[in-house]
């Protein structure tokens, strides 16, 4: 075709035109590149711009602070950072919450690790019976929202010295008044978060243990090493990097959590960074709140950086299936039954006690009276003090509807975005664009939910670029939840797409299938399991989330979780418990549905969804 000699002008033009048309065609039919750019543009806008705004906001005088900061609104200032780090109040609004956050986080992480690693070892390496049941029950406390466990804790250990003074079971039934440290504050928050997160460490360490080739341990045994020696010399060193990673990821997941610290800490004026941030925003001190927001982001970011330094590559422990090598079962011997009984007891209590307590308390006419005669369905279907039971209350229905709509919208969009992100990354494997897309999709992981809420609250309170003011609409919640879910969704999408070979798509392309045909006929069908799992997990974690939405909802956009929080603040525990029960049932059945539909454990990979 090509002619090295000078062509006539019209032919050259035609050729140039054809080349341009072909380039455009190629650009459209190989969409992973422009999709990558589009992705960067949209999510850069939705992630980087808000963070930039927050940084600027801490450096300028905010609404209502003009007099105290000595300037006009919008002036440049270091007032907020001085206030946070060196001011008279810094101890109260920063250092104490920081210390509390660190102590609680290290505490629950150590506890969760201890429990999780022990469980993982028992299930993967030992001959403990009832493995299926233990594995099933151990995941439940991770699936239910942490604030329901916190509420159940109060039902058990609450005392009448704090708040409205409704006693828990311990005081009411057994007659022991639990001391404040047991009922409220640091200790129970640590325990509740440990219960919430041990399944996460369990999953991570179980997958690490499962990848150890049993032959290594066998050969040690042949050479005369005892059980303990094998554990010390072979098993532990092999899984140590994974354990370190699990430690950091667990730590990072919980530092911004809001529900448990709010329910168990605020009544005794015990503040962590998340609850202090909430309080500062609540009293209109947005400068202070934003400084804490950034500190939380930096903390989570540091943890993640440490993790990837430790791991080299962070993708290492995303699978539970591991290799097909022989698995060595360590006989527990005479310890078999005691260990079994303790394990069964523990996982059963952690899994079923909270929900039982919530159901019970939701049926109490008078709060804190655990007698049989005090049982009533009033808070479910009746009416009391002009407030209707949750089944009949239009406000609850409205909130349930909002939760559902938001959950579905977020689930659909994130599952789709996840698959498309996966496509961009898998197709462009090795290219810089693909790498940057992957990194950007991971960024929201370091922004704790409540920090995200604070950011979006400011960012979208007024029209921004092409978007109208979203504050007060459900769009702001959907958008925030969507971006918040992005790391999980794109993780799922990338691993699903990596499994689909290029050749399938190329074959279709040769036969003239356009991108959308390929998407519909090849990519989606082959990744439908991943899509479904991503869909349901997104739905579940959106419906049960409190941290992200607590700053964003308004009466019109009220959702179930925030309504629950409101009921607790109003001293209406029974209503809160009843809604909590509904959410727990919904969340559990959806997760099991996903498990059943995909015949896999959807919590695998990236440690699931609890934030």
């Amino acid at each position: 075709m090509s002619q090295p000699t000078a062509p006539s002008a019209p032919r050259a033009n035609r050729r140039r035109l054809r080349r341009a048309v072909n380039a455009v065609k190629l650009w459209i039919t190989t969409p992973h590149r422009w999709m990558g750019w589009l992705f960067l543009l949209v999510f850069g806008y939705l992630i980087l711009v808000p963070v930039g705004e927050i940084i600027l906001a801490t450096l300028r005088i905010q609404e209502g602070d003009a007099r105290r900061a000595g300037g006009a609104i919008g002036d440049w200032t270091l007032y907020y950072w001085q206030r946070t780090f060196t001011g008279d109040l810094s101890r109260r609004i920063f250092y104490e919450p920081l210390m509390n956050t660190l102590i609680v986080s290290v505490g629950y992480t150590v506890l969760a690790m201890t429990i999780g690693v022990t469980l993982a070892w028992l299930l993967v390496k030992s001959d403990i019976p009832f493995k299926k049941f233990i594995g099933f029950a151990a995941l439940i406390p991770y699936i239910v929202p942490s604030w329901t466990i916190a509420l159940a804790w109060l039902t058990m250990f609450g005392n009448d010295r704090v708040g409205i003074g409704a006693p828990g079971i311990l005081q009411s039934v057994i007659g022991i008044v639990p001391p404040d440290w047991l009922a409220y504050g640091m200790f129970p928050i640590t325990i509740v978060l440990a219960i919430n997160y041990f399944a996460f460490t369990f999953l991570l360490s179980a997958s690490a243990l499962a990848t150890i080739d049993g032959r290594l341990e066998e050969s040690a045994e042949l050479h005369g090493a005892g059980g303990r020696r094998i554990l010390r010399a072979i098993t532990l060193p092999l899984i140590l990097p994974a354990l370190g990673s699990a430690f950091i990821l667990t730590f990072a997941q919980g530092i911004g959590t809001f529900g448990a610290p709010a329910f168990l800490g605020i009544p005794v004026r015990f503040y962590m960074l998340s609850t202090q941030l909430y309080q500062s925003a609540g009293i209109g001190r947005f400068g202070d709140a934003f400084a804490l927001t950034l500190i939380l982001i930096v903390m989570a970011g540091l943890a993640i950086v440490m993790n990837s330094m430790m791991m080299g590559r962070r993708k290492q422990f995303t699978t539970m299936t591991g290799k097909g090598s022989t698995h060595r079962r360590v006989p527990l011997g005479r310890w078999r039954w005691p260990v079994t009984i303790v394990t069964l007891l523990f996982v059963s209590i952690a899994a079923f006690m909270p929900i039982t307590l919530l159901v019970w308390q939701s049926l109490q006419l008078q709060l804190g009276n655990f007698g049989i005669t005090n049982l009533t369905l009033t808070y479910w279907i009746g009416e009391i003090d002009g407030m209707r039971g949750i089944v009949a209350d239009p406000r609850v229905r409205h909130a349930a509807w909002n939760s559902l709509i938001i959950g579905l919208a977020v689930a659909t969009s994130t599952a789709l975005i996840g698959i498309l992100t996966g496509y961009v990354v898998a197709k462009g494997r090795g290219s810089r664009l693909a790498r940057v897309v992957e990194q950007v999709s991971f960024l929201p992981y370091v922004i704790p939910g409540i920090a995200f809420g604070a950011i979006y609250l400011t960012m979208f309170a007024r029209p921004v670029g092409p978007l109208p003011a979203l504050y007060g609409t459900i769009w702001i919640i959907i958008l925030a939840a969507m971006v918040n879910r992005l790391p999980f969704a794109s993780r799922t999408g990338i691993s699903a797409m990596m499994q689909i070979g290029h050749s399938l798509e190329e074959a279709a392309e040769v036969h003239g299938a356009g991108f959308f045909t390929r998407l519909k006929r090849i990519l989606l069908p082959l990744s439908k399991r991943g899509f479904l799992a991503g869909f349901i997990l997104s739905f579940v974690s959106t419906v049960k989330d409190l941290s992200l939405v607590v700053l964003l909802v308004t009466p019109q956009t009220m959702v179930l979780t925030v309504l629950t929080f409101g009921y607790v603040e109003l001293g209406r525990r029974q209503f809160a418990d009843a809604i909590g029960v509904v959410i727990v049932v919904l969340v559990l059945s959806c997760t099991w549905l996903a498990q059943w539909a995909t015949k896999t454990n959807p919590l695998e990979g990236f440690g699931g969804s609890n934030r």
Partner: protein
Amino acid sequence: MFRPALARKENIMTNPWYRRLVAIGCSLLLIGFGTVSSQDDAAYDAWLEQAQLGPYQPAEEDWDAILEAAREEPPLTFYVATSRALGATDRFNERYGLNVEAINLGTNDLIERVRREWDAGLRNAGLIMVGNPALFQEALLSRNAVTRYVPRELEAVMDPIETEPLLRHRYSVGTWYYSTDGDPDVVPYENLWELTTEPWRNRVATTDPLSSSTILMYFTAVVSNADQMAQMYEDYFGESIELTTENAGYEFIKRLLDNDVRIVSAQRDVAEAVSVATGNFAGMGTQSLYRLVQEGTYDFTLDTTVNPVVRTFQWIGIGSYTESPNQAKLLLDWLMSQEGGAPWWAADFAVNPLVDPTDGFDLRMADFAQVWEPTVDEMVELSDDLIDFFLLYR
């Protein structure tokens, strides 16, 4: 487009790719900051004229014409801080055949919400009724986001103080009440300061001053009446006070907090705690809970004689630039009236002198022996310091 993979790692800052990204980010930031809300005097004046407000309010109002104009307007949004308003607007809609929507939010949330909408250029708020005058003034009046309106008939009978800079709807007081476990006729303390002594440790409850404007107002009054607080200290302890804080008012708050005061999140929780307590127990909240004692929900006695009470009020005004000014006028007039404001007259004190309290509500403003009333300026001046003070000593 494809470039060969680089053999060595580049410095991220010199990477053209990152530079491009940073450039895009920066330009997006600029777009974001481009929106600025501005107050256009001429446009405001035009709106006032059209809405017949401010200088254009006629000397005598033609209510038939207002109703007729109201029916042509889009439905009004009424921001209000009490749930009782929902019933009141339902009856209003029934009476006038209108479709006003009431949005019920907490005091501070409501003001913050209206401010955010105002700054976003949204003019959703048609009528606003809410307490916390200090925050109201700082966030809304300073922006001219709310416009004063007083129906002529009311202006004729009301004290001008009660109509400036906005019309007041009703009064309430922040007051103390105590457990009926002892003799209900004897107030179980002699003086505010007694509540800071050991026998009252963990036996006083209030709502969180950081979220409750009533409680914040009470402590504002305590601080602005610091001299009297010092005198009361001497009366009770027989010696002059030794200060560890700025004045006797702050000192009282600090000692009360040090005395393990129970801080709860809801007014009802205070009432509940006082009702179920055995032995001496005191709580602070608004007098509106008294209604629930009359109805038998709670069991406590109001202290009208020993401790000072603090009077506060709710402002009501029309959202500037609303498209439904006539509906706003009608609703405001209705809420001020005997019939329209009925849900409040059973528990709060009407500012409108023509309104009689509902049958069965036997509490009067005059029943309280000592009433403190900080000015709005005092509140504005003190509230920030007080909030910091609470954060420090909570």
